[in-house]
């Protein structure tokens, strides 16, 4: 059996943000973890710092729950995992579930092999539109080298930006148009 190729790192989501097509909405959600080691919890997962991480402290699967106040359109999820620094703590099998509450989650499964950076997980429905959901659950089902606990360095949730100034049209591209789009 051929060795599965390593998962290539994705681009830095910050650059994505600057295009103005997506917006990070993790701050609008309530984050919770199934377990964590003291000092390695949600804050470290959401602090924009790749040096700090979440370390779980229980049995698998380890869960990250993201609950929004209202049904939110989510386009994609970005996770940072690095095999070189985390080794056996690096997740290898992740299941992303979305739904309205804990009891009706639908799954999107993902497998990673020795990731070394950002992983972009698009969350699209059957017609390739971003999904609208109340909550997202990220379950770490297995780690590399069968490690028990997992490290996750950063997770970001993105929603598409509707450039709706007025009218149901897509965003305009030239400055000339954009100047007149809105009064500020």
């Amino acid at each position, binding site marked *: 059996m051929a060795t599965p190729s390593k998962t290539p790192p994705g681009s830095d989501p910050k650059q994505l943000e600057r295009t103005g*097509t997506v917006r990070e909405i993790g701050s609008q959600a309530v984050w919770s973890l199934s377990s964590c080691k003291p000092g390695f919890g949600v804050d470290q997962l959401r602090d924009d710092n790749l040096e700090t991480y979440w370390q779980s402290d229980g049995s698998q699967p380890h869960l990250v729950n993201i609950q929004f106040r209202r049904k939110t359109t989510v386009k994609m999820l970005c996770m940072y995992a690095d095999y070189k620094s985390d080794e056996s703590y690096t997740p290898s099998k992740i299941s992303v579930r979305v739904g309205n509450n804990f009891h009706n989650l639908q799954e999107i499964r993902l497998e990673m092999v020795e990731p070394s950076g950002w992983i972009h997980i698009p969350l699209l429905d059957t017609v*390739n539109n971003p999904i609208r959901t109340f909550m997202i659950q990220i379950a770490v089902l297995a780690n590399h080298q069968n490690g028990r606990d997992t490290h996750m360095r950063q997770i970001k949730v993105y929603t598409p930006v509707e450039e709706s100034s007025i009218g149901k049209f897509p*965003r305009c591209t030239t400055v000339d148009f954009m100047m*007149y*789009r*809105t009064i500020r």
Partner: protein
Amino acid sequence: MTVLQEPVQAAVWHALNHYAYRDAVFLAERLYAEVHSEEALFLLATCYYRSGKAYKAYRLLKGHSCTTPQCKYLLAKCCVELSKLAEGEQILTGGVLNKQKSQEDIVTEFGDSACFTLSLLGQIYCKTDRLAKGSECYQKSLSMNPFLWSPFESLCQIGDRPDPEQIFRLTSLQCFSGGSGAPSLLPISPAHTPSHNMPHRQVDTVLMETPQDTLELNRLNLESSNSKYSSLNTDSAMSYIDSSVISPDTVGTLGTGGTLLSKQVHNKPKSGRSLLGGPAALSPLTPSFGILPLEPSPGEPLYLQNYSHSGSGMEPPPPGVPPKKSVARISQVGTKSVFAQSGNSREVIPIPFNQTQTTAPPQTSTTPQVLSPTIAAPPNVQPRRSSRLFTSASSTAKENSKKLKMKFPTKIPNRKTKSKTGKGGITPSNLNESIEILKLDSSMTEGKVNMGTPQFQAFSLQKAAADGLMSLMRDIGRGYLALSSYNCKEAISILSQLPSHHYNTGWVLGQIGRAHFELAEYMQAERIFSEVRRIESYRVEGMEIYSTTLWHLQKDVALSALSKDLTDMDKNSPEAWCVAGNCFSLQREHDIAIKFFQRAIQVNPGFAYAYTLLGHEFVLTEELEKALACFRNAIRVNTRHYNAWYGLGMIYYKQEKFNLAEIHFKKALSINPQSSVLLCHIGVVQHALKKSDHALETLNRAINIDPKNPLCKFHRASILFANEKYKAALQELEELKQIVPKESLVYFLIGKVYKKLGQTHLALMNFSWAMDLDPKGANNQIKEAIDKRYLPDDEEPVTEDYPYDSAAEVEESQESSMTDADDTQLHTAESDEVL
């Protein structure tokens, strides 16, 4: 008692005039501890206030009884600054709940400073939502003192339409009765109404002065607020300012004038109240302020000189002659001029004055040769002359003059008259005249009858200068009024007609920049604002508009440079933080932008634009409730802030509450009727409400107002498209293509129209152009349009390629759709080949 106080008081004023606040405060505290008089209390409070500690002044005055008008005024001012509006109002009018004083009562109580009191009261009323009363107060304040700009500005901002022609006019009463304020200009004190007709009388009274009176007069003069002296100084060899003054060569004087101006301008803000008395006696030589017949010299620099004079509040000697006289005197008085400038030195002054008299000759030697002989001649006489000339009738020196008034009631009016006539422009006027007047003076002191002509001349020169200023203020007032009613084109044309030395100032250019901004002419606005930055890099007012202009133009480098510069320069100004917020908003870092806008609000909760910008940021982060609250706050602060009304309309539009959206947009439009962007939005909302005819009408109006607005045409085309008027829509879009050839939306809409018309090739072509032009768009709508276009069609080979492409696009949404579009072309080519 007063005798004991005077040297100390003089020392305190001296220190204040030199911004040595610690010294002033210390001395004032000792004086107050020694003498618990209300005057000493006022002096101490003034020291605290001027050194920037309004809270100290407030607590001090609160703790003791304040019955004198000046104490009350200062206390009220502190209250307003500390946002204790109810208290301020109570002090000035006797309270919200109690029986209130009428405006007439206030005028009689506060006398000279009534115009400022009323202006302050107007501020209080406007901030507490009693705009009608506030407007009344402002009007009254302006009628008493037309030199005040801020009541006029406030009236424009609350939506009143004051008439600058009526307001900026010197009534004869004011000219001749001195009224309140504009001490330097008004030749005659209020008590002195008939005197202007009788310069002789003044002379007579002057003649009757005894040497002792002279000393008192000196004190008075010196006590009066600055300007006059400074004006004198410009001409004369003011020892402390610039000795190179008087020369027959006007150029020389011009030079000094310039330097003096810079100093004077410095003095102006610092001297606080004493300098508030309007720009008054401006140079008669500038075109703006009227060229006095006396002096053929070029206007501007001399104007500056005079400006500085008036600014300092010291009464300038009568133009022509007096400057010379003052030269002599000033050179002698050396140190005295310093006091004079500060305007409130007391006892101290006469003494050095006397001393300097003896040293006059060496100093006067610096003055032009013509004067020196005359000056040297009667040294003993000169003090008296100067005292006469330097008497100030400024209201700022009210406390001084009051005291003196008590002692020398008859003399004061005379002094005032004389000093006022003396004001005029300090021009290096005819030396002959100066000599003549000097001789006259000496003759006067000797008991001879003075002709009074020089004073009369001086007086008319002064009047001409004041008229010049008034005419400038009328022009500026008209321009500002037009801008406040958003008649931007008119405002620009009025303000552009100002003389170039006024046009090229930060304030005027800032207003013009704002006018361009409101017209959505962002390129011109940006040019003008960058000029403002070049001329006055310290100007923060108006920079928030500049930053929004750069935001619209998406010039992030310029915007971040501006933001850094302003936040480094002044962290306490809301404008700087608004600029910073705009900078980060442009970088799409909305959380940081929100932080900065909140900071701007903290720094100044009365700055409506900060709330509006914060609201826009919340809209961008989809926190609509918070955004609503912000816009409502902005409206609370300033009802005429049409941007906030627009913001509310936008939120209701997003929430699909189209009726509410329309109402709010229309309210914004009622405030700013010439905004094509607003009209465009109303049109779209009306279309959403199914009132397409109205929508088209509105859009036509918008296009008429501003033919350069491409979005109006675009929306008109889209409404025509929605109403199935495809040909008209296409025509519109073709025109639009010419105007904005690189806009992907245009091609997208054209594609849709062709699709509806069944012309698939053209539709496809346009869609692919649209995709090309929108590389990072990942515009689902365009892709969807293409997908849908081809899903129902089964037979064409091309279709096989498209689902393939769209799937690929979906998976790698981040990638440039450029490549996808290319792929599309390739596939079409291949499929053609296949065929």
